[in-house]
């Protein structure tokens, strides 16, 4: 890569640009913290217990309105005799009304996740039972689950089936010895139930059964006194989606403009684009893909695949970012075979670690989310084979990540070794070479600093988020929604980072004739800048006549012996 704008920019222009980007970053953080609500909200719904001696799997049992309400009962003790588990239906109708208002889901709320919370009471008859493991109850829960939806304007009893499935889940409960009395509850682990990638309809109805017999097999025998089922319904908050999508809507054109400008600059060069320039271009393209506010589409069309697409978009961006760091470090190694390095092939080992990790995560994601497109109740974690497979992919991805960080650390260490070596010999070099190396060192250090700053901010932000309760109070009136601020802050940060890369690491070749050696000119400029830091306007002077930038580089690289 030839001289970049960052080296040629005067200190004042640079500081103005950096200040602008910092303000932009701060805005993103405050937007999330002050305007957006928490990213998600959960409401725990207690299942209405209904019974029907002639249970019909095509009939929908609902708890509201009163006219359509199923036959319900409060406690297992008051249940008529002769009713078996096969006749009992747990009904969850969401959203639940508040303040005498019937609520309906908005498409801005994006997705819906359901987690099962069983309420199992200690039964006097449990006394003789010896716990077989660390849990007092450890059994298979077989759930016959059905999900339907209704829209505003539909008749009260019209429910359109969305999914139905018989699922196995693991139920693990334990109880303290001193609470082994009737009336006390076991504490049970939460059970993931379903994930809907799109919240397209207004009302949802979940019917659950824990039958005794299923296809001639006895199931659910070890449940003990399960009195209630609760489901925590978790959805993205509409306000958060609005803020998030606005952020994307603003960043999308900004990055596109920067990308086009960057591309035009490269096209103006006489030489073919360097590998690093292609890399930055690719990073910008991946970010544009991520920024594309496709979420607007979900307001009109039912897009269950949006979460999968979102994962892919995010994956592509982070893969590009990781590859970019590798190649950036590699291209600044300042070895003498620089022409050789300027090829993707030189990085195949390093990049295959990134690629391998991404492929593993992609396969894992497709196994879970992909199948959920057809069956929202599916979870890869419930079967042993699925769990092992999922773990295998995650471990593989982990190994790839480890390998990647080894490669990257090694390369960065190499660069620093080379920098200190070159620094010692700088004075002995010809001014041409000296300026070239000074440029490389400057570019590298600037990016290292920025990257470390970004990474540190992400990590610190994450840790602070874990420590705090999710909401920070400044005073009575102002409270900061920290989780949202972290999300928008990090999102804004990588946008700002990429924008800065596109602006500052674009090839610098203002106004001067193409034939000239940019390399030499920018070196000269750098020297001038250092001499006279107040000089705001950069003047260009002919330094040396060379056929092209690339040949200048080649020529320089080809005569190490002279130094």
């Amino acid at each position, binding site marked *: 890569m030839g001289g970049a704008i960052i080296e040629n920019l005067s200190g004042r222009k640079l500081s103005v640009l950096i200040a602008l980007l910092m303000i932009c970053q701060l805005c993103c953080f405050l937007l999330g913290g002050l305007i957006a609500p928490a990213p998600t909200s959960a409401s725990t719904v207690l299942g209405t217990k209904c019974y029907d001696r002639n249970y019909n799997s095509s009939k929908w049992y609902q708890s509201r309105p009163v006219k359509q309400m199923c036959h319900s009962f409060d406690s297992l003790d008051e249940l008529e005799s002769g009713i078996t588990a096969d006749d009992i239906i747990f009904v969850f109708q969401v959203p639940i009304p508040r303040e005498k208002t019937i609520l309906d889901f908005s498409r801005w709320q994006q997705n819906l996740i359901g987690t099962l919370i069983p309420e199992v009471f200690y039964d006097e008859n*449990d006394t003789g039972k010896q716990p077989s493991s660390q849990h007092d109850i450890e059994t298979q829960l077989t759930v016959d689950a059905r999900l339907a939806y209704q829209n505003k304007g539909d008749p009260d009893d019209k429910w359109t089936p969305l999914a139905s499935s018989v699922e196995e889940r693991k139920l693990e409960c334990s109880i303290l010895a001193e609470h082994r009395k009737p009336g006390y509850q076991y504490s049970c682990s939460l059970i993931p139930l379903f994930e809907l990638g799109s919240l397209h309809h207004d009302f949802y109805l979940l019917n659950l059964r824990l039958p005794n017999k299923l296809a001639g097999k006895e199931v659910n025998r070890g449940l003990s006194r399960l009195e209630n089922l*609760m489901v925590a319904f978790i959805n993205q908050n509409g306000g958060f989606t609005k803020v998030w999508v606005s952020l994307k809507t603003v960043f999308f054109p900004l990055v596109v403009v920067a990308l086009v400008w960057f591309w035009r600059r490269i096209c103006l060069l006489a030489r073919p684009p360097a590998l690093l320039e292609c890399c930055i271009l690719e990073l910008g393209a991946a970010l544009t893909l991520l920024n594309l506010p496709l979420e607007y589409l979900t307001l009109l069309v039912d897009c269950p695949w949006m979460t999968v697409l979102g994962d892919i978009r995010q994956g592509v961006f982070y893969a590009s970012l990781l590859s970019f760091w590798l190649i950036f470090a590699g291209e600044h190694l300042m070895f003498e075979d620089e022409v050789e390095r300027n090829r993707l092939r030189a990085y195949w080992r390093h990049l295959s670690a990134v690629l391998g990790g991404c492929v593993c995560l992609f396969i894992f994601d497709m196994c879970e989310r992909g199948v959920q497109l057809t069956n929202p109740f599916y979870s890869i974690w419930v079967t042993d084979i699925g769990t092992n497979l999922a773990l295998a992919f995650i471990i593989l991805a982990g190994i790839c990540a480890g390998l990647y960080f080894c490669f990257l650390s090694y390369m960065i260490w190499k660069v620093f070794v080379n920098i200190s070596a070159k620094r010692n010999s700088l004075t002995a070099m010809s001014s041409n070479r000296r300026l070239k190396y000074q440029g490389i060192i400057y570019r590298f250090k600037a990016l290292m600093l920025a990257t470390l700053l970004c990474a540190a901010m992400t990590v610190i932000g994450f840790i602070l988020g874990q420590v705090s309760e999710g909401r920070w109070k400044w005073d009575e009136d102002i409270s900061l929604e920290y989780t949202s601020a972290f999300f928008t802050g990090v999102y804004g940060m990588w946008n700002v980072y990429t924008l800065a890369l596109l602006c500052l690491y674009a090839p610098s070749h203002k106004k001067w004739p193409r034939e000239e050696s940019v390399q030499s000119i920018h070196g000269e400029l750098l020297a001038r800048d250092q001499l006279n830091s107040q000089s705001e306007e950069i003047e260009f002077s002919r330094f040396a006549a060379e056929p092209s930038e690339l040949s200048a580089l080649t020529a320089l690289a080809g005569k190490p012996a002279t130094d």
Partner: protein
Amino acid sequence: MDTAKVRVSSVKISLAVLPLLLLLLWPPVAANWMYLGVVGVTPLLPQGDQEAQNLSTSSAVSICQHLPGLVQQQVAVCQDHPDAIKSVSAGARRGITECQYQFRHERWNCTTTHEDPDVPFGHIIKRGSKETAFIYAITSAGVVHAVTQACSSGNLTDCYCDMSKQGLSTPEGWKWGGCSDNLNFGNQFARQFVDAPEKEWHKKEKKFRNLMNLHNNEAGRQERKSELVHIHSSPNYCKSKPKKGILGTSGRQCNKTSSGPDSCSFLCCGRGYNTKAVKYIERCHCKFVWCCRVECKNCVTKVDVHTCK
């Protein structure tokens, strides 16, 4: 407010069994709402009226006036939240069940009576004893629990959606940032409904007894355990004194080997006990099978049953 008081007083006079002294010593304590837990809501409604049974219709407002023994503020709260009255009844019932379970081995075993709607626990509740304190706390806790449950199952539509931070009204506010949990509403509702009679009486008569009930109501609502307060000592509950609402322990089963309150010597108050040898075919090695049966083996046992004289 006045009608309620007159009602309570007139009942007392019509009973004509309470000495005048008692009336002066013990203020008329309205614990009548607890009666809803003994009989439930449905029998108290005008029969055969489908619309009236449907509590969510506007005619339900009149139902609140049909319920006996509520003070004026309770009627107002009931009219504001007609659906919640079912939960009050369920909560009081849950409280009574729990009380009977907790006191099943004691001399006083939390017996309720259907006879007089004004005193569901008998006249014993008029004494500020620790048993009364427990009744107040446990029924108050029952109401909070039942209302909270009704909120989270969506059967009660009145529950709050706290959106004070965003300053948005409910449907928009909920779509923007969701709602807080339901626990608050249960507590606030119980404070308005359960405490109303005590507050009303206290305003009029400034009796320490009302403050005691208020304290115990609040103690029941708190999740953490807090001390109950009582101002009278408990009677011994040994002999049957129908005037005071004490049933006595005669006829209660006792445990010969126990040294606790259910022991024969304590429970029978030294009157001795009858012993009968009974051959039981008992269910043993039981296991609760979801749902809803208990699988047992039959064991034949010979047991001596002791009953207080």
